């Protein structure tokens, strides 16, 4: 078995193991971290495939740049869109009516029970 084939085999084995790990993890409730964990594992798997199966590891810098660039741009797309969804409920907000930062706007008459909270 040449070195190359050995690398492939090892990577393949790791990939299978990681897949098992995600399935295992998804059966265990770890709250909000489920998504983060599965995504982390998926990313590791993808990186392994890119680096070794797709030979980026020993490719010229330009290939690194293209592969990396696509990830960066994907993050721009996701990141700046999620800034919107993540901050829609903040106050003052033309849309949501979830007062978070500011006092109640909906009820003109102050509510006795609420005063203490401010």
């Amino acid at each position: 078995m040449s070195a190359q084939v050995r690398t492939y085999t090892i990577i393949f084995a790791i990939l299978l193991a990681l897949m098992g790990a995600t399935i295992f993890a998804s059966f265990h409730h770890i709250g909000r971290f489920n998504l983060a964990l599965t995504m982390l594992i998926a990313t590791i798997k993808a990186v392994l495939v890119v680096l070794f199966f797709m030979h980026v590891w020993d490719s010229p810098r330009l290939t690194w740049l293209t592969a990396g660039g696509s990830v960066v741009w994907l993050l721009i797309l996701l990141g700046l869109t999620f800034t919107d969804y993540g901050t829609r409920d903040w106050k003052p907000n033309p849309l949501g009516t979830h007062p978070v930062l500011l006092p109640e706007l909906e009820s003109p008459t102050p509510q006795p029970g609420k005063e203490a909270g401010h």
Partner: protein
Amino acid sequence: MSAEDKNQPTAAQLAAPSLPKKHYLNSRYSPGSWLLTKDHKRIGLLYLMSITFFFFIGGAAAVLFRLELMTPQGELQPDTYNKLFTLHGITMVFFFLIPAIPAVLGNFLIPIMIGARDLAFPRLNLLSWYLYMVGGAFTIYVMLAGGVDTGWTFYTPYSSTYSNTYVMATAVGIFITGFSSILTGLNILVTVHKMRAPGMTWFRLPLFVWSNYATSLIMVLGTPVVAIAILLVAIERGFGIGIFDPRLGGDPILFQHLFWFYSHPAVYIMVLPAMGVVSELVATFSRNRVFGYRFVAFASVAIAVLSFLVWGHHMFVSGQSIYEGMVFSFLSFLIAIPSAIKVFNWTATLYKGTVTFDTPLLYAAGFIGLFTVGGMTGLFLSALAVDVHVHDTYFIVAHFHYIMVGGTVMAYLGGIHYWWPKMTGRMYPELWARISAVLVFVGFNLTFFPQFILGYLGMPRRYHVYPDGFQVLNVMSSAGASILGFAYLFPMCYLLWSLKYGKPAGDNPWNAIGLEWQTTSPPPTENFTKTPIVDYEAYAYPGSIIH
């Protein structure tokens, strides 16, 4: 041999330029030799003809609705009006301006400018033209079958659920054309990376190549996203899956995010190549090296990168979070900086130059002035509070026509005039050309300046019925549009005329520096008889200082 020597016309050429015996135009004549050509120059010409066709369709639509807008209560049916401006927007953006410079001038010139025999993937290049034509055919079909009325922005849920026009066919057309644009971009990127002639280092590239390179980055990174957005609209429309319709569970704002993620960068697809053209024109006609060459080159790339960070400025009042609005407003201001770098450097290029007022320079100067106004009004729009008022009014219409028509179309025309002798081997009639350049400038300002005022007065866009008070300004605008229309017809006529009667131009009629001027006009099929070796800097005009 210095650059200057190479570019000096030989005595024989000075005497009486004549066309070379064999060149890409006369090498073969059969229809197949055009329709199946893999020669980037011929494909460039195919594109030239097709985009001109679509420009006139879009222009005709504009003429019709400008006529309608002369009176407050129009003659047209509301539906017809809506279909007209949608047709106008779609053809002008997707079928004219996006391919205009990259696919015509870029296609023709980039390989020659870097000393290559062709683009890296000639067959892909041809495929890209065919995809464009197929997409165009869908659009023509839609136009003839009854039109589409969503506006070029396709906002959901109107486009996905409510409109009962030909949204699907239009979507398919734009999807396909999107791939044409991706392929062009990909081809240019690979070509610039891998096909440069010996000695043609990155910093010896003409700025036209730099700006098209930046444009191609946007095409490759952005276009797929609009493709998927449109595909999702089609899926929603076809199967009733509520991806963007709130009644079916979706969020219409999400569509706007996806759409503008591409369509904002797309406006730089439309302006960056024009900036490249202007760099060439300014250098040639002031016989100077472009001032701050590296800054201008990097500014192109900076614009390409920043362009992906500002899309939300189209959505300030759409219902996105206002914090998001602030982020996008801030980022939008940043993009003024590389634009400013370019404007100031072009201006400085003229300093201590040797300026000749040939038609291309007139267009270039027009570009710089109108782009400055258009760009500055862009800042009005990214300043949140002002945008609240002028969003979706004629102020926006004026803003983008200043850049796209006043800017890019001018630069495009300037480029066409400048390289016309290279493409056809013949000169155009200079006097006519100058007259029409001035007419374009006048007609343009008369058409679109009143729209700024209209916009701040509050006339919403996409309105065909409007309060009486707006009429005077609208009539001015329509009058300007008819001047502009004529001004665009002139070049059509005299350029066609020159194909037969223009006097042979010679290899380097402008006495310019650049590989494209070192080969014959028109160039041979393989561009150069011998692979050129580049041993001088870009724009190395005598007396220019090279850093």
